[in-house]
């Protein structure tokens, strides 16, 4: 036995999806984390809570509302249709959008923690040396908070690879577009093809172990979550 062509397609799709989502999340999540770490606005609590929602909501809730929101009668669906790009469910881009929501807290929270741990002092010093806001971010925050960004990227990637419930709800199981590894494993189990299921499932266990091992070995002092 071994991986079938369908398995390899699912693995490749999963890696592409997780990589893109990780990049997008670092771009979107960093300003949010920065704002959450430094603001004293009364919106800090509500925004932080919304970002953290996917941590506690079952994926069925998130998937169900995404299906309704991105469907032809939902606000997101009407917006995407008016843009002329059609509907998002059952497409690769639909999974990208869903995964960005779903994995958001895993990226925002480590970065936010890292920035909060820096405190005001390094930034004030940099400002007295006439470093502008962008310069302060790239020359001071980024290097000092590097472990936080590292943790964020790994967790965001790994969590997207491990996503299942949301994909099941909005994916439609289309080979090469939405049939990711976790769904492929589920199909094997449902079809009682346990041998094939073991191959993929065991690969997932080993992959996840290696990812977490890398995280804890290379980055031992960072707060985990």
């Amino acid at each position: 036995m071994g991986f079938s062509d369908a398995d390899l397609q699912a693995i490749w799709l999963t890696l592409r999806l997780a990589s893109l989502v990780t990049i997008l999340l670092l771009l979107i999540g960093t300003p949010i984390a920065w704002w959450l770490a430094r603001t004293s606005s009364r919106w800090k609590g509500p925004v932080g809570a919304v970002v953290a929602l996917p941590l506690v909501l079952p994926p069925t809730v998130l998937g169900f509302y995404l299906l309704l929101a991105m469907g032809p009668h939902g606000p997101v669906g009407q917006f995407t249709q008016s843009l002329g790009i059609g509907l998002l469910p059952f497409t690769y881009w639909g999974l990208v959008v869903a995964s960005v929501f779903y994995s958001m807290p895993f990226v925002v929270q480590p970065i936010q923690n890292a920035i909060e741990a820096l405190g005001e002092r390094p930034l004030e010093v940099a400002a007295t040396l006439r470093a502008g806001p962008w310069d302060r971010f790239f020359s001071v925050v980024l290097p000092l908070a590097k472990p936080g960004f590292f943790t964020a990227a790994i967790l965001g990637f790994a969590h997207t690879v491990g996503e299942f419930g949301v994909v099941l709800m909005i994916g439609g199981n289309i080979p090469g577009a939405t049939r990711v590894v976790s769904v492929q494993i589920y199909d094997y189990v449902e079809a009682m093809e346990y041998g094939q299921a073991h191959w993929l499932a065991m690969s997932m266990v080993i992959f996840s172990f290696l990812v977490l091992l890398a995280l804890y070995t290379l980055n031992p002092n960072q707060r985990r979550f």
Partner: protein
Amino acid sequence: MKTLTTTFSAFALIAATFATHAETVQVAVAANFTAPMKLIAESFKQDTGHTAEAAYGSTGKFYAQITNGAPFQVFLAADDNTPAKLEAEGMTQPGTRFTYATGTLVLWSADPALIEDGAKVLGRNKFRKLAIANPKTAPYGASAVETMKALQVDQMLAPKLVQGENIAQTYQFVSTGNAELGFVALSQVFKDGRIAEGSAWIVPAEMHEPIRQDAVILKTGEGNAAASALVDYLKTDKVKAIIRSFGYQIQ
């Protein structure tokens, strides 16, 4: 002392009565049979005093759970292969397997105007997505693929297919409008002898292999009075009428 003995015997009598007449059976029920099973469980309780506690899910998942010691005593599957497989593996009580319902496939849309002239909507191909249940794991999905082959539209429609993991999810894709139409179980959209909402084409039975749904008493159900009572009850005319009212056939 006498009163104590009397009280004790009274308790023993009540306990014995409950033991023989009101047992509980745990039933694993195919998702497409959810609605009829709820009604059947109610009248089963009224007519026999026994309680049927149902869990609803996919047949493949139930197979995995049953072979790994799940505490179900009766299994109402969505197909005939899985109960036969369990029987061959010695997981069932021999001689108890029978077809309790034959499923009817329907092409359904939430849009009341979409399916006006039966199967022709498939040939016109003027829709974005067509939902089916996963043909590898769900009998209704396999029948949907057979039907499309019989109509010679399978190749043309292949790029438009989206798959639900089971028939309940397939229904969800169609009812939310994310897929304009889809092949679902008639029992999901049938109420009081007619299609409850949207538009539909009931697929003629000769377009695909019959969707035989078999029931069986599992090894764990041996000696459980409620288990055999339930299986007998499923064969009564009263229950057959309930099952038919949801659009199933009974042979």
